[in-house]
């Protein structure tokens, strides 16, 4: 019952419910009340336009069209319901055939249904209308049978989904007959979607019936339904348009009412629908705003300068801050690694820096400069050009990061065409040259291929090549090797290193893999819960890390000589949920050094004389790092989450 209330909760659902009710009530009472008015002949007042006496005018016998439209409700609805009933019954027979008759004969029925479904309903209805003859009875049969194939297919799908369930198998094993299983176990379980689709079908039948009657193939005089009134009215549309418009409006209102009522019920009950009309959902999103602060000057050597970077998303219980105020700079030719568990905000940092955080996310910073240009200002052409040529992005999944419908060469060439004003030919030549530069063999041929013809490693190299179409000062690579085979991971890392060495390009490498970062980078930023908790030279990772989280990350890496029969070490506890960051140090709950102060006061990121930074009240304090031992499957579970 509760679920049914959902129907009237949306404005469309409520309107449809009320309208459907009104149409049904009208169908019952209208002929009782207005029959005499509708049939009253007034030959002195034929084909009159709308007046106070006759709201929709009169027909060629002077009968009131408004009343006739009201009275016609009953016949129109009756015929539609009768046709729907036929469609449902025949559809049930067709749809359950494979269940009852067994595989072989069922297959034949299914093939027939599949062929019939391919033909539009109106064509089937015309075919049957010819066979059953012109008139109301023939039209009911025609529309009913025309609707049967799609009903049959729906039934078949539903029956198939139910008959695979355990209780049906149990009944079958218990020796219950097929017919009995169908009636007792299968049909009760599919009745809900069937009824919903029948309601929608009734709306369609009503409209189809109006169509057949309008063609003169349905209801014949002296009976009349809406379609028949329309048929009579359209001839005199220049004399009295209301004679056609009144029944036309009635058909539309009633058809829409049934249709939308069925859709709303389907939506409220979570039932699938044949037509697949999707009504709008009701979730709402609100973005929050925060003012930006003053800008800082940056030195010439600095490629990227980030201060107090924050990323905010609206959440159900207030704004969520997955990145909570981080500051760092990257110098020319420098390689900076960003490490942390998933959810630490490292990928969002990359997107925020490159201005790719989409709505409804918001990026704030007191300084965000690439090569001295403020990136926080509005999206200008000059800024786009700078980002397009000076900043290269490499994303995690090369399989999905290229447009599957376009050739690789043109996807690379696009950059040169838009930012360097090259024509098609020279841009493509440059693309081929860059593909060669990233060691793609036969670049001329490869440029004409589609992404799915490239292997994963090749695609990632092409992605890097795309970044090299301009003259990048900075490459931001977000987990560039995570989605690749182990064998090609090293190639991609080597390629990045080679580019950096050759052109003095700075690199920001984001990874969850401490080993990779330690190998490629000069400096490492360790992120936890949207903050930088430690910033140290890569060479000091193994021995000089002062933050307990960094030390735990390093210790969790299996060494070459780790005994693989031993359980792998993991950091105890779970990463912080960005929607619920605790007070004090975010890592305190998992930290072996945590004291009372850690739970109440958040440590600031302090810089020491050597330029290293750490945010910890107990930085560098000696501890035997306690690593909880777990079984491997538990570890995988943590990684998967």
């Amino acid at each position, binding site marked *: 019952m509760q679920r049914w209330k959902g129907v009237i909760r949306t404005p469309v659902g409520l309107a449809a419910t009320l309208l459907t009710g009104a149409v049904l009530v009208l169908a019952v009472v209208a002929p009782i009340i207005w029959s005499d008015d509708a049939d009253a002949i007034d030959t002195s007042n034929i084909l009159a336009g709308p007046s106070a006496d006759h709201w929709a005018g009169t027909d060629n016998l002077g009968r009131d069209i408004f009343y006739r439209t009201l009275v016609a409700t009953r016949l129109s609805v009756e015929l539609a319901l009768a046709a729907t009933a036929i469609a449902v019954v025949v559809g049930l027979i067709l749809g359950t055939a494979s269940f009852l008759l067994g595989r072989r004969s069922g297959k034949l029925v299914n093939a027939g249904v599949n*062929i019939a479904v*391919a033909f539009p309903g109106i*064509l089937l209805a015309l075919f049957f209308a010819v066979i059953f003859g012109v008139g109301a009875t023939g039209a009911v049969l025609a529309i009913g049978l025309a609707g049967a194939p799609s009903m049959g297919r729906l039934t078949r799908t539903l029956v198939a989904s139910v008959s695979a369930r355990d209780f049906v198998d149990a009944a079958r094993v218990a020796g219950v007959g097929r017919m009995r299983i169908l009636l007792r176990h299968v049909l009760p379980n599919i009745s809900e979607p069937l009824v919903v689709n029948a309601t929608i079908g009734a709306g369609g039948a009503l409209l189809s019936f109006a169509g057949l009657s309008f063609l003169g193939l349905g209801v014949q005089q002296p009976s009349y339904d809406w379609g028949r009134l329309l048929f009579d009215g*359209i001839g005199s549309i220049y004399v009295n348009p209301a004679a056609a418009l009144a029944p036309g409006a009635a058909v*539309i209102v009633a058809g829409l009412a049934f249709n939308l009522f069925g859709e709303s019920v389907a939506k409220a009950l979570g039932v699938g629908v044949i037509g697949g009309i999707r009504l709008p959902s009701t979730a709402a999103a609100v973005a929050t705003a925060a003012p930006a602060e003053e800008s800082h000057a940056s030195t010439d050597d600095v490629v990227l300068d980030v201060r107090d970077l924050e990323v905010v998303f609206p959440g159900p219980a207030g704004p969520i801050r997955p990145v909570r105020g981080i500051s760092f700079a990257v110098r020319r030719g420098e390689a900076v690694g960003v490490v942390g568990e998933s959810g630490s905000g490292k990928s969002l940092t990359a997107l925020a820096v490159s201005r790719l955080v989409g709505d409804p996310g918001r990026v704030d910073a007191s300084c965000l400069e690439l090569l001295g240009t403020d990136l926080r200002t509005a999206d200008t052409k000059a800024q786009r050009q700078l980002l397009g040529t000076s900043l290269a992005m490499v994303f995690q*999944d090369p399989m999905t990061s290229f447009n599957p419908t376009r050739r690789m060469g043109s996807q690379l060439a696009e950059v040169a065409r838009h930012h360097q004003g090259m024509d098609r030919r020279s841009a493509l030549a440059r693309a081929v040259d860059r593909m060669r530069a990233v060691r793609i063999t036969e670049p001329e041929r490869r440029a004409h291929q589609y992404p799915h013809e490239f292997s994963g490693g*090749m695609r990632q190299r092409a992605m890097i090549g795309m970044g090299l179409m301009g003259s990048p000062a900075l490459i931001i690579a977000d987990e560039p090797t995570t989605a690749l085979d182990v064998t090609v991971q090293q190639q991609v890392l080597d390629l990045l290193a080679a580019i950096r060495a050759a052109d003095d390009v700075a690199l920001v490498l984001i990874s969850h893999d401490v080993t990779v970062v330690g190998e490629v980078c000069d400096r490492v930023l360790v992120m936890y819960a949207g903050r930088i908790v430690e910033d140290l030279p890569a060479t000091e990772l193994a021995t000089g890390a002062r933050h307990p989280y960094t030390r735990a990350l390093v210790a969790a890496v299996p060494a070459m000589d780790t005994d693989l029969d031993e359980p792998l070490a993991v950091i105890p506890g779970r990463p912080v949920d960005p929607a619920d960051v605790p007070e004090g140090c975010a890592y305190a709950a998992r930290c072996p050094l945590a004291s009372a102060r850690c739970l109440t006061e958040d440590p600031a990121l302090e810089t020491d004389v050597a330029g290293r930074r750490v945010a910890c009240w107990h930085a560098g304090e000696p501890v035997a790092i306690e690593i909880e031992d777990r079984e491997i499957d538990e570890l995988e579970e943590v990684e998967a989450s």
Partner: protein
Amino acid sequence: MASASSAIAATPRVGRLGSHAWLRFGVRRLGRLLISLWVLVTASFLMIHLIPGDPVRAALGPTAPATLVAAKRDEMGLDDPILVQYWHYLQGLFTGDLGTSIVSQLPVSDIVSQRLPATLQLALLAFVVAVAIAVPLGVTMGVLTRRGHGRRTELVFTTSSVVLGIIPDFLVGVGLVYVFGVNLGWLPVAGNDTPSAYVLPVFALAIGPAAILARIIRVEMVTVLEADFVRTARAKRLPKRTVYLGHALPNALTASLTLGGLILSAMVAGTVLVENVFAWPGLGSTIVSSILNKDYQVVQAVVLVYGVGVLLVNTLVDVALALLDPRSMIRED
């Protein structure tokens, strides 16, 4: 080294899989088309025999002399064994002989070939108009309502397109006749003598499918705009127009094509009703008048033509889909 070997490994694998899949797809699709055609032809043959009573008597009327009815039955071969008739029917189809109209005495093939062009024009123009409306509208709406933006716009658009999509084409036609013909007097409401006479029938047929198609394209656009390759396009700092039209749209269209095909074949059949609203001299008005006149030879042929039209459209859509997205060939069964 490794890159060279992976290049060699990748090429033949894709090539071999590709041609194999194409062959399987072609054979299966052709088989389905032929079976559907056979069912269609048989159904149209049986139509005359399933009609209760004597079709010749029905066509000629109760006052026609019995000798004339008998002569006509003999001429049409209605007294032959049914399999012989079926054989003659198939023979006739292959030689382009669709019989003779009982009412007008004209060869049915002449009637069909005279009427078909008007219907084809109507259906094709309406399809072009529907796509021309739906694509820009769907793309614009997709961009405006991505990521939960423009809730109100989405509600208004979706609700109105649902409503427009449900209203049958002939009622849209009646509305258009009233507004632009009767009320404003801008456009002719019958026949196909002048170019302006095309406007109302074409729009009557196109508006509903355009609304449905635009809604589908919007949903697909909203999905595609979240794809990784769109992020890549944004990372290239391409102008927004290029990101939407060059990268997102082709992928959204591929996904919309399946349903677009259903809409197109429904449009072929939709001409029946719309032609009758606008007195359009095509097959649609022919079939209705023939049914009313009990001119069953003509009805039979027109049903067949419409059916073949629908089957061809369905097949073309499947092939287009396979060309655009080769994965659909395998998905199919």
